[in-house]
Structures are given as structure tokens and as C-alpha cells.
């Protein structure tokens, strides 16, 4: 389902806090691609994705989502995007179904489409027994699943996830990974940051390695190995080698 049309194009994206967090970053993600962004702590992964999602204003650069300029026409860009952070932010006093109804309402989705989609999503994430319980008693994993269901209920074309597997048990993580793979197969584009390199290795079509706010390497796992002349090495060894080189530079 991958095409040459770009789902996301970042050009010269820059953000400075007390130091340079993202340094004139150029990045292209193709439609239907599963793209993993990896890098050490403080490398600028989350800052980059937060700028794409409209949560942070860049100091310089452009963000284009399916050809829409996300900085000048943010509403149109947001309509086709979904954001899931590592810290699920949902409403304790709403049930999962009420939460999904609210999200669908915010995105202006027809309830005749949203209601069955919400049920299907929650059931596929193993929450069928909790559809009408308020989220306040949920574990972190359950909350993360509700947040993910909320992100998917409006059928986004681009899904941005920041460490979505943090705090999930093995079964829940498998549910989430399965759901994301299904979406990619259906033509969705997924961009995900993760510290679990095995996940990036197994799920991603392409991997971007970011260090000190710059993209230091990009490609399929095979391409990354080839670029570094290490044909039988794991992503973990590659990652450490790339980050060490970036730090030395």
C-alpha cells in the first residue's frame, strides 16, 4: 500500500528551548509507511512529533501533511491526523465509549459510522468488559488503549505515536501492535517514536535515527546495515554505533 506520495514532509524544522532541540530537520515519510523514529533521550524525537501534531510552534521550517501546510492551515491538517502520547490523557469520569463519542464529535464524524467503529476498536483492544465503566479505575495499560482507540476512531490518515508501548504488558502491546499493523495495511501512515529497538526492527518499514536534533541515519534495517558496513549486526548495535558517531561529531 506504500506509495511515493508523501504523508509528511518536514523541511528545516527547528526548535530551540534553552538549547537547540531540533536542528533544521528534513524528513519525509511516504503514504502507507510505518516509520520508526529512534534516538537517545533528549535527541529531539518528541519535540519533532509535537511540532507536527500542532502542540508546539516551530521556530523555523515547514510541516506539510498530505500536501497541507500544517502551520498555516492547522485545522485541515489536524482533521487527518491523530496524536497518541506516552502519557495517556483521558477523562477519568467518562467511560471509554463516552470518551470515543466525544472524540468522534470533535472530529465531526457521523455517529452512525463512529459508534460501530468505537465498539470494534475497544473490543479489538480487549476492553469489551469495560465499555461502560468510568476510566478512573483503569490501569495505565487500559488507559493507553482507550487513548489509542480515541486516536483511531476518527479514521486518521496519519497516526503519530510517542512511545505508545510504554507501560503496556506483553498481551496489550501485541494488541496495539496488531492494530497499528492493520491500519498500515489499510493504507494509513504511522510514525512512532520508541526506545524498544526490537519493535522498530520488527514493525517499521523505515527507521530514522535522530541525535542532537538531527537525522543521522535513515532507511530500512538492511539499508542502515549497508550504510554502516555492518551486515550481520542488530539494530541495537547499529543504533549505539550511530549515536556514538553523532556524539563525537
Amino acid at each position, binding site marked *: 500500500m506504500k506509495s511515493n506520495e508523501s504523508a509528511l514532509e518536514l523541511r528545516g524544522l527547528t526548535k530551540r528551548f534553552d538549547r537547540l532541540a531540533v536542528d533544521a530537520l528534513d524528513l519525509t515519510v511516504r503514504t502507507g509507511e510505518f516509520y520508526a523514529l529512534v534516538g537517545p533521550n533528549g535527541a529531539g524525537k518528541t519535540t519533532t512529533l509535537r511540532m507536527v501534531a500542532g502542540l508546539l510552534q516551530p521556530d523555523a521550517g515547514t510541516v506539510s501533511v498530505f500536501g497541507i501546510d500544517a502551520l498555516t492551515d492547522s*485545522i485541515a491538517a*489536524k482533521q487527518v491526523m491523530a496524536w497518541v502520547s506516552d502519557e495517556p490523557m483521558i*477523562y477519568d469520569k467518562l467511560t471509554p465509549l463516552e470518551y470515543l463519542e466525544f472524540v*468522534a*464529535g470533535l472530529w*465531526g464524524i457521523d455517529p452512525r459510522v463512529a459508534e460501530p467503529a468505537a465498539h470494534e476498536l475497544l473490543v479489538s483492544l480487549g476492553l469489551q468488559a469495560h465499555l461502560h465503566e468510568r476510566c*478512573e479505575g483503569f490501569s495505565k495499560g487500559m488507559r493507553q488503549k482507550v487513548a489509542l482507540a480515541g486516536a483511531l476512531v476518527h479514521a486518521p490518515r496519519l497516526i503519530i505515536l510517542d512511545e505508545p508501548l510504554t507501560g503496556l504488558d506483553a498481551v496489550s502491546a501485541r494488541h496495539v501492535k496488531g492494530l497499528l499493523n492493520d491500519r498500515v495495511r489499510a493504507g494509513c501512515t504511522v510514525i512512532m517514536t520508541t526506545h524498544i529497538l526490537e519493535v522498530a526492527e520488527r514493525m517499521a518499514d523505515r527507521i530514522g535515527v535522530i541525535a542532537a536534533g538531527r537525522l543521522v541515519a535513515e532507511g530500512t534495517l538492511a539499508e542502515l546495515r549497508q550504510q554502516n558496513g555492518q551486515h550481520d549486526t542488530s539494530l541495537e548495535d547499529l543504533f549505539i554505533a550511530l549515536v556514538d558517531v553523532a556524539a563525537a561529531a
Partner: protein
Amino acid sequence: MSSARAWFAQHELRLAWREWLAVMTAGRRGRRRAALIGLVVFAAIMHLPAYAVIGRFANLQLPPDISSLIIVAAIIFLAWTLMLSQAIESVTRAFYARADLDLIMSSPARLADVFSIRIGAIALSVTVMSLLFSTPFIDVLVIGGGFRWFAAYGVIITIGLSAAAVAVAVTILLFRIIGPRRTRLAAQIIAAIIGAGFVIALQIAAILSYGTLSRFAVLTSEAATAFAPGLDSIFWWPARAALGDKQPLAVLLAGGLVLLGGVMAMLSPRFADTARRASANAAPDRQRARATAFRSRSRQQALRRKEFVLLRRDPWLMSQSLMQLLYLVPPAVMLWRSFADSALAIVVVTPVIVMAAGQLAGGLAWLTISGEDAAELMATAPLTASRMIRAKIEVVLIAIGAIFAPFVIALLFASSVQAAVTALFVILATVSATAIQLWFRVQARRSQFRRRQTSSRLATVAEAFSSIGWAATAALALAVPSAAIMTGVTSLAILAATWRISPRRQ
């Protein structure tokens, strides 16, 4: 072991001091000097209302007559109920909100000792707070009536000790009766009712008996004198102690210490058990909601519905709002009485309603505008910020309208002019409080509602002054319309000044 106790006591006092400092400085280190100066200025200014309220009692002649004793005893009881309310809050926080319970309970320290010290620290902080608040009042009495009034400090210490002891006992009793999950909300509601209950009960009694909102009308009435115990009764010991009688003062202080010591000895082991159960039940009940089909709504309607559902299901808000709504009970009683005799005193109802509307609107506006639990969801939704804010403001206006419309409709039966004036100033107070919250909005979780005053002291003060200003303007508009222009302009000036210094403008 005793050094461990001393170390833990020092730790508790340091936490209490830093918590207090954070409240005073809104968590900013550089503000300590400004906070200290502000506190001194505030304490100095507080001498004026203190003089207005109790200045006339400074020269009470000894031996006091029964009416004087009733008034002094009532003031002491009022202070005690307020401190009890505060102490229940502190104890509930010690059970639920302190992040160190897991650490303490997993340590090899004897839990009964640790919790004895914690109860002692609560008693100390409540007592110090009582002393701070009462200092302007006692100063006024000492300046006007002599050094004998210094004994009132002893009574205040007794109030702090006994309020803390009773608060611990009440909270543990609640745990036993209704369980840890419901205790938090129940304790908050009880604290709210106790805090406001005594004053409101006196007001209702005054209205029913004398058609006035004055609390002193009941206390100085012949009926109160007739029902009061004799002059020799121990019932008057707190009042006598405050007036400088050494023997009752010594007994009260000893009684306060014994009560607190008894609670520490008897309930500390249970306090540990209770804390363990509270921690084990930290996750609330999984409450179920009725299943309803998804409905077709506009984006704004979806936002408004979400806000209404969250407001309805928020126990913190319920207890905080209850406090404000309780103050509406006396004017409601007055309204009900006034249908019969159209007393002139009914004018007093308008400022009370306006004030309550302003305060409640401020709380609701903070919850809807600043207290957003899914801030990132909202920020990534395809909706402009202005449309989101508009929907949230609509929720505040609709909620205030629903709560206060019955009062305005009831006023229509007494006076259509007063109803119109009340409606107008309820709207002005609501809009002003909402605007202030909008100008000073921060991103916070709804559970931080209790701390909203610390995030911006300026917004809190501006909100209070604006509500008071509109309440005064409403009262004057009914009584002396020409004077209302002055207070109305002052209220607008407060709003303009608040806007000029607000972060939204800068």
C-alpha cells in the same frame, strides 16, 4: 528510637513549612520576601475588619453578664468549627494525597510512632494557622481592653489541638463506617458543612425570628439568654478563659493536650491501618454509566456535553460548590419569609446572590477553561482555540443560569425591579469572574482544583474583589442608585487593571 522520632518530626515540620511557603509564594522561590511583606501588610489591614467585628467587645466588664458570655462563646465555637473544617481537610490529605505513604509503610519504622508524629504535625499546623488568623482580632482586643485578652491565645491553642484531635477521630470513624473509597468525598462535604454551617444556622435563626441576616440578633436575644446555662456552668469556661480567667484557661489547655494525646495514643495504630487501606484502595470504584447511543452533535455541542458530564460527575467540585451554595440558604429562607410580609430586609438577598454567583462562576470557569485533563487531545483536535473557549464559557454561563434562575424567579414575586437588578448583576459577576479566569488561564488537571488559588494569587484576589464590587453595586442600585455609579465604575476599574496585568495581554 527517640532520635528516629525526632528526625521524623523534623521531616514533617519541614514538609508543613514548605507546603505553607509554596501556598504563600505560589511555588516561586524568588517571591519569599514579597510574600512576607504581603503577609505583614495583609495582617495589618486585617486589623480594620477585626476592629469592626469585635472591637466593641474589647471593654467587656468583669464579671461578664450572660449575654457577653454567649457572644464570646459563640465566637470561640465559630473559630473552632472553622479550624475543625481545616483540620479534616489536612487529615484527609494525609491519608490520600501525600506521596510518601508507600515509602513510610514499607520502612522498618514503627507505624504507630510515625503516625503519632504525623497527627502531632497536623495539630501543630492547624494551631499555628489559627494563631495567625486570630492575631489581628486578639490585637484589637488587647489594644482596646488590656493585657488580659492575651489569654485568648491560650484558647486559640486549645482550639487548634482539640480540632485536630476531633478531625482525626471523625476521619477514622468515617473510614470504619463508610469505607476508604467514600471517606474522601464525605470528609470534604462534612468539612464544607461544618465550616459554613454554624454561621448559616445563626443567620437562618435570625431570619426566622427577627427578619434580619444579623447573627448577633439571635445571640443577644432574650430567648438565647433564657435558654443559656447559669453563669457558673463549665459551658462558659472557654469564654471565661478568653476573658483572662486563669483557672479555666489552664484546664482548657490541659484538656486540649490530653485530648490530642489520647487520640494519638488510641488512634495512631488505627491511623496506620487506615492509611494502608486508603492506599490499597487508591484506585476508585469502577463506576458504570448508562449506555447510550452516539448522537449527532456539532463539535461545540460535543464539547459542551463533555463539560457538563464532567461537572456532574466531579465530587471535588460538588463539595466546593456546596460550600458556596450553602451561603444561599439564608437568603432563600429570607425570600420565603418575605413573600408573607415584604420586609425591606429582602434587599440584602441581592448582594448575597450576586456574590455567590461570582464565586461559583470563578470555580466553574477554572474547571472548564484551565482544568482540562486531555489538553493534548484538545490541542490536536481540528477546532480553533476560540471555538473551544467559547463552548467552555457557554457551559459556565448555562450552569450559573440554571442555578440562579430559581432565585431570580422567586424574587419576581417580591419585586420585579429587584429581580431585574439581581439578574443583571449575576450576569456581570459571572462574566467578570469568567473573564479573569480566561486571562489567567493555565494548563492543569481538574484534580488540582484545590490548588487553583495558589497558581495565581492575583487572579484569586481580583475575582474576589470583582464579586464583592458587583455585589455592593447591586445592593446600592436598589438602595442608593446614585452611589451605585461609583462602585460600578470601581468594579470596572478592577477588571481593567486585572486585564492590564494579566499574562494574556503581555
